[in-house]
């Protein structure tokens, strides 16, 4: 079963097209959704939530077509956090509880206050006096407290310090201890995604560049550094991206396509994304 299934999704804006994208998030796993600012991550997430109309394509969330009338009640099973947490300025964490109790059918007060305590959030402080990290944590506490099966987070960790980010990643990690729980996590902080994701989907200028198991990616790709003359002897189909300087060539290659005698270096997700995004000279 897939928690999210996107098929041939297209959405056109003037100056930007989300171009026929397809991917699926298997239940029980964490998918990292990576791409530069303006690549189409937030548009895709809005389309998944059926918050904006699409031009064409099909989306299933938790097994249900998101344009069917039942999708409205299914939203109880989805926890969503956007890049900015919006609550009225004067509201406190205690007020949020009162509001959400009447919003979500499965709201759990005890879960919510456990998270508030775990995150060290003040109960009676007005929302406008919260730091960015506190706002984000409050939004995440809300998303987790109505017993969701699927968490969707749009840039939830950007703008936060490394300690808080790590804490939040741990929470997502723990959330998926239940095999019925899945997470879609969009971010441009690739190192965060490398830490916890099972799958990576990389979107670039409205197109899906790759959708793969993270560890396989790290096994399949490698970095190679060579003088120009030696570089020309490498089969060109192995080269997925290269950077040429006056002193040599640095390239992202597919390990399986070159002779094992070449000295290769272990790659990171960040390298893969950067090289593929540039993709010049292929």
């Amino acid at each position, binding site marked *: 079963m897939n928690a999210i299934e996107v098929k041939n999704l297209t959405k056109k804006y003037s100056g930007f097209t989300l171009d026929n994208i397809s991917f699926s998030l298997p239940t029980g*796993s964490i998918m990292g959704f990576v791409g530069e600012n303006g690549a189409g991550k937030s548009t895709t997430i809005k389309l998944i939530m059926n918050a904006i109309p699409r031009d064409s394509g099909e989306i299933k969330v938790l097994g249900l077509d998101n344009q069917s009338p039942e999708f409205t009640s299914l939203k109880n099973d989805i926890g969503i956090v956007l890049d900015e947490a919006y609550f009225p300025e004067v509201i406190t964490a205690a007020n949020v509880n009162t509001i959400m109790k009447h919003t979500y059918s499965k709201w759990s007060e005890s879960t919510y206050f456990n998270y508030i305590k775990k995150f060290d959030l003040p109960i009676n402080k007005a929302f406008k006096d919260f730091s960015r990290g506190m706002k984000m944590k409050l939004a995440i506490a809300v998303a987790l407290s109505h017993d969701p099966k699927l968490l969707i987070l749009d840039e939830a960790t950007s703008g936060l310090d490394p300690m808080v980010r790590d804490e939040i990643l741990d929470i997502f990690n723990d959330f998926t*201890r239940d095999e019925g729980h899945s997470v879609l996590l969009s971010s441009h902080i690739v190192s965060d995604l490398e830490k916890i994701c099972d799958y990576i989907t990389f979107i670039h200028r409205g197109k899906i560049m790759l959708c793969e198991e993270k*560890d396989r990616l790290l096994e399949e790709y490698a970095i190679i550094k060579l003088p120009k003359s030696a570089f020309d002897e490498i089969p060109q189909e192995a080269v997925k991206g290269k950077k040429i300087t006056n002193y040599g060539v640095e390239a992202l290659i597919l390990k399986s396509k070159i002779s094992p005698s070449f000295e290769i270096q272990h790659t990171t997700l960040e390298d893969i994304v950067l090289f593929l995004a540039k993709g010049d000279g292929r």
Partner: protein
Amino acid sequence: MDIIISNSSGKPIYEQIYSQIKNQIISGKLQEGEMLPSIRSLAKDLRISVITTKRAYEELEKDGYIYTVASKGCYVSKKNPEIIREEILKQIEVHMRKICELAPACNLSEDEIIEIFRIIQQED
């Protein structure tokens, strides 16, 4: 159970898990019939991918080190003397290869190598 994952070794993570669990089974640190942590809990505790952990367990099962009881979990198999012999032979081979590489560097003859081997045996 100790499992240390290195992100910089360049060795695939599933292989690291596979070989560390295998070594602990061969050395007897993990006993026959002992239950292994579930794939999901091991993955979450090590903060690695569930798919990768599953792959390691599948390899261990394929090679006969563990077996799965449906909806219960994975257990350490009865030690198979054949497999263990095979494993040790493989290790010996690795060391022998090393000798073959090193010996020509100082013109060591076959007889001299055997002589060293005998001396080491007598030391013990």
